[in-house]
């Protein structure tokens, strides 16, 4: 079920009313309802893949309890190993089988051998990368003795499959989300209202910004050989806003929806395109994944401790794996590696934690130096997104070659003013709200002028109704 579909517009109020009116006061029934709703939500795509989630849930529930009751370190480690193998095994099979097979086949072929194995026609289950990482965090945290396992299967299953964030995150930590399933929930008016606002802004980002940009990004990337540099630049720019609008829009809707049910999910985006360096960008982009890798991979590998070589090695490992997590294609691996290259100078000069505050905090405009830093960081990001969007590496290099040609200064062949103006409005609005958790958070106004707030909501709904692009699948579903 897509967040931007009629199905969801009907589904959400029904679950909401049942949750707060029929099952209020009964935590068990509320969790059971959330579980049932989540399975319906997921099964809407393909009910067969529900078996994967159920299996993964049962395995991790059992292993979690077993690890907790086990005294022997060796056995605890073995149990954790089983959990990791099962979870990553599923992920590896569904997502990476054909990729590895193709690459092995090519490698053998170069060495003069023919590998007789056929590719499989595998459909990637929606959201598998997200819920796999979420369940992994559960068993790892229990192994580390940072979390007491739940004995209630319904609570655990609801945690794994919680529908607002099931298919595209934020990837929640068990330590944050699971205890919320144990706590009696009381309807929180400000939280719910703020949730509604965040849903509205998420819809705007997805339907207006991402879907409109997608139309031109697809057109230009799919026909990149016929366009000149300036059009290719616009194509990369459109994709830059498409992916941000699409993914952060999804996260906003997920967080807002969870709030309607009394849950607080972690923040996933913090205005990343206003970052002043790449380190700051990665603290603001897909925060739930970046911090997951930091806590469960980077730090166990040694983090920034040790010598320069260790730092460089760990940085590359994290970024490359992060790229590979996005998809089985060398383009994603290259994108990850390129970001590592961007990040490295900051790490080696100990400047990777320079910008921890909001950009131009307390001021309307950035200083000239801040502006230059933001522009440089944004440009590097746009360049990296070309690899992310390209069909294959040679396509990306050809695209960049075409972009950095003399035709970069010519008038673009495609110049969709309405979309560019919408992007301009979007950037200005987000800039004005950059110190808030999301762009429609109105702390001061909420106490004062309701008519201003409501006019803004109606204006945004009007923009959604007027400029809503053709409905597109969320990009991150494929990951």
């Amino acid at each position, binding site marked *: 079920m897509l967040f931007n579909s*009629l199905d969801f517009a009907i589904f959400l109020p029904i679950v909401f009313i049942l949750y*707060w009116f029929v099952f209020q006061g009964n935590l068990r029934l509320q969790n059971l309802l959330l579980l049932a709703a989540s399975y319906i939500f997921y099964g809407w795509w393909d009910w067969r893949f529900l078996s994967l989630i159920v299996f993964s849930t049962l395995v991790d529930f059992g292993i979690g309890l077993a690890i907790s009751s086990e005294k022997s370190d060796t056995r605890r480690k073995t149990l954790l190993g089983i959990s990791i193998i099962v979870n990553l095994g599923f992920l590896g099979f569904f997502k990476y089988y054909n990729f590895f097979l193709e690459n092995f086949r090519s490698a053998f072929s170069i060495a003069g051998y023919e590998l007789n194995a056929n590719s499989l026609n595998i459909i990637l289950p929606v959201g598998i990368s997200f819920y796999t990482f979420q369940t992994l965090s559960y068993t790892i945290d229990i192994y580390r003795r940072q979390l007491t396992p739940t004995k209630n299967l319904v609570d655990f299953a609801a945690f794994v499959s919680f529908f607002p964030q099931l298919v595209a995150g934020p990837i929640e930590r068990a330590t944050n989300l699971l205890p919320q399933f144990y706590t009696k929930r009381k*309807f929180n*008016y400000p939280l*719910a*209202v703020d949730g*509604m606002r965040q849903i509205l802004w998420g819809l705007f980002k997805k339907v207006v910004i991402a879907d409109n940009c997608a139309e031109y990004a697809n057109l230009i990337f799919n026909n990149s050989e016929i366009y000149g540099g300036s059009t290719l630049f616009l194509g990369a720019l459109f994709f830059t806003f498409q992916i941000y609008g699409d993914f952060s829009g999804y996260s906003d809707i997920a967080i807002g929806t969870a709030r309607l049910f009394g849950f607080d999910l972690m923040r996933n985006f913090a205005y990343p395109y206003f970052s002043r360096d790449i380190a700051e960008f990665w603290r603001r982009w897909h925060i739930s994944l970046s911090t997951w890798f930091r806590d469960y991979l980077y730090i166990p590998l040694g983090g920034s401790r040790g010598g320069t070589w260790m730092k460089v090695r760990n940085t590359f490992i994290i970024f490359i794996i992060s790229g590979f997590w996005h998809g089985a294609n060398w383009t994603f691996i290259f994108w990850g590696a390129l970001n590592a290259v961007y990040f490295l100078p900051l790490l080696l000069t100990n400047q990777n934690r320079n910008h921890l505050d909001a950009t131009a905090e307390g001021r309307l405009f950035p200083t000239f130096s801040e502006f230059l830093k933001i522009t440089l960081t944004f440009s590097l990001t746009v360049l990296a997104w070309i690899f992310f969007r390209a069909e294959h590496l040679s396509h990306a290099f050809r695209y960049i070659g075409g972009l950095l040609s003399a035709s970069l200064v010519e008038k673009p062949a495609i110049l969709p003013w309405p979309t560019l103006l919408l992007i301009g409005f979007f950037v200005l609005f987000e800039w004005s709200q950059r110190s808030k958790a999301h762009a429609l958070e109105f702390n001061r106004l909420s106490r004062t002028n309701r008519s201003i707030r*409501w006019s803004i*909501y*109606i204006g945004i*709904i*009007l923009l959604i*109704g*007027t*400029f*809503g692009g*053709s409905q597109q699948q969320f990009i991150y579903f494929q990951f």
Partner: protein
Amino acid sequence: MKSFISNCLIFSIVLLGSLSLLTIASNYIGHLLFPFELPKHTRTVILGNSHPECAINDDEIPTVVNLAQSGTAYYYDYLKLRELTARNPQIRNVILGYSYHDLEKNMDDWLVGESKLKYKLRNHFLLFNFQDYFELLQFNPWGVIKFTPQTIFYNINAVLKGYSYLGGYKHLERVKLEEAIKYNKGRPALSENSSKSEYQKIYLKRIYEYCERNNLNLILLHTPIHPIEAEYYSPVKDYYKIFAENELPEAILINHAELDFPEKFFADLDHLNYKGARRYTEIIDNSLRSLGVINPHL
């Protein structure tokens, strides 16, 4: 909780009220300001989809205005016709695109399918009255509701752009015939008993009745198509002809589908390019003169 629900309800009412008000107001203003008047010497208006849109260059025939537009269902042609003739009493003749495919079932999509509805609703909204809107609402309620807010901005846009927003001759330069022939080679002909579009039939008859009531000459026109396309539609030719004879008996049917045109005149299998349009405009001009539709002294 109660205040949340009541606030949501109040907001929904305010939202619905504001959007309705803006929609009605922009429709009213659009209708009021749209430059509906055609030149005084205009006697004939061309309506229909991309076939007449690309086939007749109205610059070459002074008393004719081509307002056909690609992807237009008869429903929208009816709205255009009603408004145009009410505002321009000098119009005496209506040429309406009437091709073999126009009655086929898949044409329903041109009216109720979301991909077309999205553009056609907003482009034609200033021609709607309440009854037209509620009629369309019955066919695809969710689609119509979803795309109605778009009309607020587009009504204003229509006023600024004028008639070019509703149609006009399209100078087609594309060269896709070879590709289309290759793609359609070996395609089995359409079944003789293929399903028909009830929507298209209803509104075609409504156009006919309107013309009858208002003493307008209705000319049904099939512009030239490539022999491969004519062959594909050949099983439904009889139905096409009989429908016109039985249901639209006073209308004049000009079927130029199989006119002998060289390949260089086609943009693809069913559209003429600008060279074909240049030639076809002469042909249709002569046809209309011989029918007495065009007065050479004007």
